[in-house]
């Protein structure tokens, strides 16, 4: 009986009316459909808030810092003595340390990473590649604090055994270990670039009688060069921002120069040093970490944007 009366009731409505009724109903499903996109949008916007938050905090405190220390003194000063009676805030020692450790890292990771990429992309069989690549990427998954421990308690003693004038904390050992850490980054990204070179080009060169080595250097690398350079730039950016390895293994001397046997401090290590020794909020030294972090942020951002620009602009399309 009930079903009969229901169908009678329904028959008085056209389908169009039913749809309209459904649309205007305030059922849960309907309300959800209206609210959910808004909530999701807010979630997606969290990332924008994060960026705004980073830029705002760094910017406002950096401005505070530059009211105490002149802009020119900060960027051209070659001495950093934040704790002395006449404190001096020159960032150059930190930039020196950062660039030197990054240079050592890229000297290690660049050649090894690209050669590993060549092997994986051009020489290894598909089966071997599928095994080796994830194993190599484990290196990138090891926490940096573990690399710091490794550099300090294993690599440094070995270096000192063969080169006694190296100090217990030096820039060389963390530089090398940082290089090992970023090998997978260079290898993986370069390999992706080489792998995306179409096979027809490889086969064409092989058919002309070239060896695999010649194919690699005369065909594959020129074709994949934008991806390879981009991987280098990203690796450099990663090395600049790396913190724990240099903090542990390179000490806190603010030396300037190219002597890799000495302890040097990077920008990141300075931030750690200041923030782990209770710098009271409001002191110049407290604000100095924001100025240093701002410099660090701008440097890594530029490198990342450069990497994106290179891989977009110079990509060869086949």
């Amino acid at each position, binding site marked *: 009986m009930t079903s009969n009366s229901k169908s009678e009731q329904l028959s008085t409505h056209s389908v169009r009316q039913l749809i309209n009724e459904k649309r205007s109903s305030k059922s849960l499903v309907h309300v959800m459909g209206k609210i959910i996109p808004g909530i*999701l949008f807010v979630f997606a916007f969290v990332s924008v808030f994060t960026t705004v938050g980073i830029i705002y905090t760094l910017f406002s405190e950096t401005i505070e810092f530059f009211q105490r220390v002149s802009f020119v003194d900060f960027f051209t000063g070659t001495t950093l003595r934040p704790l002395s009676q006449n404190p001096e805030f020159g960032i150059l020692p930190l930039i020196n340390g950062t660039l030197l450790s990054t240079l050592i890292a890229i000297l290690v990771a660049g050649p090894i990473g690209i050669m590993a990429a060549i092997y994986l992309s051009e020489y290894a069989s598909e089966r071997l590649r599928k095994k080796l690549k994830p194993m190599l990427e484990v290196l990138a998954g090891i926490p940096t604090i573990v690399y710091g*421990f490794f550099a300090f308690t294993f690599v440094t003693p070995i270096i000192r055994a063969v080169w006694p004038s190296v100090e217990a904390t030096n820039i060389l050992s963390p530089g090398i270990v940082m290089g090992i850490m970023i090998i997978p980054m260079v290898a993986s990204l370069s390999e992706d670039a080489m792998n995306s070179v179409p096979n027809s080009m490889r086969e064409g060169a092989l058919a002309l009688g070239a060896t695999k080595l010649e194919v690699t250097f005369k065909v594959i690398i020129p074709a994949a060069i934008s991806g390879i350079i981009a991987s280098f730039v990203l690796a450099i950016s990663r090395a600049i921002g790396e913190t724990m390895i240099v903090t542990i293994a390179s000490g806190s001397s603010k030396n300037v120069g190219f002597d890799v046997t000495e302890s040097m401090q990077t920008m990141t290590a300075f931030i750690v040093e200041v923030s782990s020794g209770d710098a009271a909020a409001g002191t110049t030294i407290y604000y100095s970490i924001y100025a240093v972090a701002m410099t660090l942020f701008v440097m890594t951002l530029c490198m990342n944007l450069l990497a994106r620009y290179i891989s977009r602009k110079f990509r060869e399309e086949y």
Partner: protein
Amino acid sequence: MNYMDQAQVEKRMKRRVTTNKMMRKLFLGSTLFGLIVLAILIFRVLYQGIAWIDWNFLTGTLSTNFENAGIMGAILGTLWLMLVVIIVTLAIGIGAAIYLELYAKKGKLQELIQTNIANLAGVPSIVYGILGLTLFVRLMEMGSTVLAGGLTMSLLVLPIIIVASQEALRAVPGFLSEASYGMGATKWQTVQNIILPTAIPSILTGAILALSRAIGETAPLVVIGIPALLIPFPGGLTDRFTALPMQIYYWTLDASLTSEYANLAAATIIILLLLLFILNSTAIIIRNKYQQRF
């Protein structure tokens, strides 16, 4: 007429082939170099630390005497941190990914958010530490608590989980959602009942990988002032805490004075690596077991 000097060709050929073979070995060596270092690192840590791991070490509190030192506080701290990161990043990360993949209109705004996420992934972790220090610890007056640490870490790994979730959602084939719409489902019903359940294994895989990044990070924790002192075990979101990486950091620093601390640091590293290994294995199992191919 002599087109080719056979002897000359063979001489050159030989050299080219030999170079190729030698370089092949060099390339293989480079690939293995990283793996060998990895093996040395793991062997070295095991050798140094394994003898120190016993029940007392796992369940003990920190002690000024290295023979009695334990890491229960650090383990609990890391677990609390994981809890906060899981809840915050899963909710916000999946939500953001659904918006960007399924709701956002292709245009300037979507492009902006996408570029922004890509750039955030490249920001050094220590900068997130400074954001956490300023925003959570000082401005919101949370102090160096579980919540402040967890939120800082969540912001750090959010780009990773958003990108992974987006890829997972993109991999759900169109015919599934079209069938759902064809049955009269609304967009949200389709997302809730069809797209999300299909994509969730891949999303979880990405989430676990992001989580393992979060528990290994040290720099942000140092900056927001996480101590490694004799403090009570954390029991809630507003408690102060220490975490495994912090413990490793302080013991490594102590090692230059008393060499036994290096062994304690190594033992703690074993626990941390074990935790990461379990997390990553879970991710791989989930991926292999539940991931559907269409």
